[in-house]
């Protein structure tokens, strides 16, 4: 085990903890009515965002969903900008207009936050098309859920990307449910990687609870896509530990099933591995947690004291300024 691997693990552990603690704080803030609207938590799925975003470069683009706090954080969006967004403040990454479901950061090529299931898929093809036409070596990562794969847009988009051999990484976060609808009630063929391969797209199913496996698989796929061999499909098998959104009483699944998956908690697994190999001490962990808590505290404090966008700006940006 070399130093690079070890530091990569440390980075990924930190990222996962950041995401987890951020989400947990969001729940409190939602109860405190600081955050409103729909909010979808990423708890349990941290290994996917953390691992998948790791191999990307700043030139690469990301298209995400409404369950995207983790994606945004892993892409490097400052936590304060994210928190301010959820507080509806003008300092938010979308000036407070988007909220939890619409995080944007053009400077990091983070193209949102899309609340229409499947709605981001065609955008990803377009972003990749632009890269390919301009001869740029970038890839576009498109994240979406198992439920989204039932939408017509999934089909059209997979076919188009494959037909035109575009550098898209289709990253399906298969958490086995679309709201309350289990995978086997959404899909006649539940092996999504197999389905994806029927478009002639190279596809893999990956353990989405293992951040290193996610990172490795994504790096390999990104290399392929980047060097002109067309799109790849990665099915990350994962699980959300919490309800679909804060309104969901979770009638559709057993406590026992959730508990079984929690045994495979991606943060606990990696922590255990790193402790066992001696890479991670109690002290390291404490420091890590402390660092994350302070970052969150700061983000919350900032968001709380930030300004709202002036109401007079309501109609600004319907069209470009100065038109």
């Amino acid at each position, binding site marked *: 085990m070399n130093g690079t691997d070890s530091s990569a693990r440390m980075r990924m552990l930190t990222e996962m903890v950041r995401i987890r603690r951020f989400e947990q704080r969001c729940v409190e803030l939602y109860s405190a009515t600081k955050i409103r609207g729909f909010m979808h938590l990423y708890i349990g799925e941290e290994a996917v965002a953390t691992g998948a975003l790791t191999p990307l470069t700043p030139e690469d683009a990301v298209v995400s969903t409404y369950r995207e706090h983790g994606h945004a954080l892993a892409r490097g969006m400052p936590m304060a900008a994210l928190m301010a967004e959820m507080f509806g*403040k003008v300092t938010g990454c979308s000036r*407070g*207009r*988007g909220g939890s*479901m619409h995080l944007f950061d053009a400077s990091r090529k983070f193209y949102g936050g899309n609340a229409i299931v499947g709605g981001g898929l065609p955008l990803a093809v377009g972003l990749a098309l632009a890269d390919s036409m301009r001869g740029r070596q970038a890839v576009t990562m498109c994240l979406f859920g198992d439920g989204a794969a039932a939408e017509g847009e999934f089909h059209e988009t997979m076919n188009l990307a494959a037909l035109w051999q575009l550098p898209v990484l289709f990253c399906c976060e298969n958490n086995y449910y679309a709201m309350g609808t289990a995978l086997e009630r959404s899909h006649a063929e539940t092996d999504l990687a197999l389905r994806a391969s029927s478009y002639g797209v190279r596809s893999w199913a990956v353990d989405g609870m293992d951040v290193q496996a996610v990172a490795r698989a994504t790096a390999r796929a990104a290399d392929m896509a980047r060097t002109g061999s067309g799109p790849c499909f990665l099915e990350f098998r994962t699980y959300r530990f919490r309800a679909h959104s804060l309104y969901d009483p979770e009638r559709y699944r057993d406590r026992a099933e959730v508990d079984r998956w929690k045994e495979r908690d991606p943060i606990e697994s990696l922590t255990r591995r790193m402790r066992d190999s001696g890479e991670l001490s109690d002290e390291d962990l404490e420091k890590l947690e402390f660092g994350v808590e302070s970052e969150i505290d700061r983000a919350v404090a900032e968001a709380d004291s930030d300004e709202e966008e002036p*109401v007079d700006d309501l109609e600004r940006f319907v069209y470009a300024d100065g038109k």
Partner: protein
Amino acid sequence: MRTSYREALRAAIREALLADDRTFLMGEDVGRYGGCFAVSLGLLEEFGEQRVRDTPLSESAFVGAGIGAAMAGMRPIVEIMTVNFSLLALDQIMNNAATLRHMSGGQIGVPLVIRMTTGGGRQLAAQHSHSLEGWYAHIPGLRVVAPATVADARGMLPTALEDPDPVLLFEHGGLYGTEDDLAEDAGAVDIDRAAIRRDGSDLTLIAYGGTVRTALQAADVLAGQGIAAEVIDLRTLRPLDERAFLDSVGRTHRAVIVDEGWRSGSLAAEIAARIGERALYELDAPVQRVCTAEVPLPYAKHLEDAALPSPERVVDAALKTVT
């Protein structure tokens, strides 16, 4: 009996499922989840999987399947979770449901009810806050209804199911929790006529769905200023009960239309145009429209509030017509 809008809708669906074995409910998460807004809670358990069908995320397919089943003699109730997602099924709605009877020379009917949640005001941001019911009312071949009261939530569905043609039923998301007394024997109501929700002789407030409440609140304020506003609830947006508002304007000579749709090309425009065509010489002041600002609805509460019709904006508009 104190009943919520949500409970009234549920009672209506339940009654329909009991009354006619050709009726079934189909849509995303209507079953195990109990409906995104808990409208269909408990119905799967009572009626089973055949009659309460969870669908994959495939709006076009399951709406089209509802049309096909209706053509074959069933009386389906299709739920599109919210109007925002109905765009994915719009081809089926306009080019098939609305068109088949006329285009087939009267041979094929589509006795289908499509329910969807509509409206803003819950900080759900741009992709989850559309009010498109007025826009849908442009399409010949459809009937469009919008219950604004608990009684209509209870009574419009059975009547819609009797209709040999497709009916879109828009439930305003902000109304699910509202309560009212409902008679034990409450049942079907007509869906042909508008209703006067409050009498008044000084001006006419014309509203529907979520804005009826806004108009009634405005009427209260106006009453405090000695102005008696009549409040008309359109109830059915297509075909419009033109007589109802023309008669009222004939008495009051002033009209304000309150419409949660975007202003340009709104249903309010149609109503204003008809008043101008049929009652021009009755008008003592220009018709006023209070609509939603022409922006994608923002998440931040102060911005969303500023964008939506409010009692204050209605009062201001009303005062313009009387001074």
